[in-house]
């Protein structure tokens, strides 16, 4: 009898220890809203969501929020002649690119913050770092639109003549889910943070909705 109890107890303990599915946090401000569901008013949470956008990529193709429909993506802000942190960011983003090169569930999006980065400049840059626009979009657009989008991803972008290259920006990578919510922010110049990003991407890909 005692043995049975011990076995039962062990089973219960082990059951309760069963690892919960890992989920990433949802970042940004949230709001409680009242929505009508099946004729009843219920409270729902409204998360910080990336709004619609319209930019143009290295192949002169329009890139909008629809491009990323049903996908998760990693995004950052850079410019091709940036002498400070960008090459390191690109070195690290290339790690993400190489790892998920053949995985259609994920895309990369880099916004240029320089007015000089025209489509041909972006195309030449893409060629030099040997990337395909099927996976990684380098986009340009109206400067104010880019700056507004940066705020949405919690990235700082300003024009500053005293900075090397003429622009000041933070080197963060943001991980965005299928519902266009921010699920992680990483220092794009730090290989350890990018290790974490690679782990988080796998968690996000395996999350049940």
């Amino acid at each position, binding site marked *: 009898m005692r043995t049975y109890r011990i076995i039962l107890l062990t089973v219960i303990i082990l059951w309760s220890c069963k690892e919960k599915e890992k989920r990433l946090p949802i970042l940004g401000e949230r709001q409680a809203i009242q929505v009508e569901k099946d004729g009843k008013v219920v409270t729902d949470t409204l998360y910080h969501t990336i709004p619609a956008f319209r930019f143009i990529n290295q192949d002169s193709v329009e890139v909008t929020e629809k491009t990323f429909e049903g996908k998760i993506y990693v995004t950052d802000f850079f410019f091709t*002649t940036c*002498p*400070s*942190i960008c*090459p*390191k960011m*690109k*070195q690290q983003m*290339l790690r993400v690119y190489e790892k998920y090169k053949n995985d259609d569930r994920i895309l990369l999006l880099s916004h240029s913050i320089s007015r000089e980065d025209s489509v041909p400049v972006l195309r030449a*840059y893409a*060629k*030099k*770092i*040997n990337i395909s626009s099927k996976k990684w979009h380098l986009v340009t657009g109206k400067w104010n639109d880019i700056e507004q989008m940066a705020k949405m991803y919690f990235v700082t972008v300003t024009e500053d003549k005293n900075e*090397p*290259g003429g622009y000041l920006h933070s080197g963060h990578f943001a991980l965005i889910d299928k519902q266009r919510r921010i699920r992680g922010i990483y220092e794009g*110049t730090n290989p350890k943070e990018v290790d974490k990003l690679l782990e988080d991407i796998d968690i996000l890909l395996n999350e049940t909705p």
Partner: protein
Amino acid sequence: MRLPKSVLAVFPVLFFIGLLLGNLFFFKTQEQGQKLYAQHCASCHMEKGEGLANLIPPLAEADWLAQNPEKVACIIRYGQTGEVRVNGKTYNHPMPANLQLSDTEIHNITNFILSNFGNKVSKRTFEQITKDLRTCH
């Protein structure tokens, strides 16, 4: 003339002090070169001098450095545009100038690069560097 023993005993001590100071000087310049590299060069040429894809040429085991050590100082100070061929690959991406660096700082960075990352190019003297910098175009 015979010197008293106590005076003779001072010589080895002086010798070692000299050695110590020499070492300190050597490591200090090496260390400054390393620090300056991290500050001004590593963000593009990377910590181990590996460069970036076909965009930024490597400094590690770079044949170009062995062939053109006298051009390094000018490129550090004034940057570079146009094509450059390193280890069989052609690169064409502008490098910005670093006008804020002094001759001494450029000397230390140059020697740090020439003797690290697998490069075994003979170091340049300060006189050579100042001469290199006078002939930049």
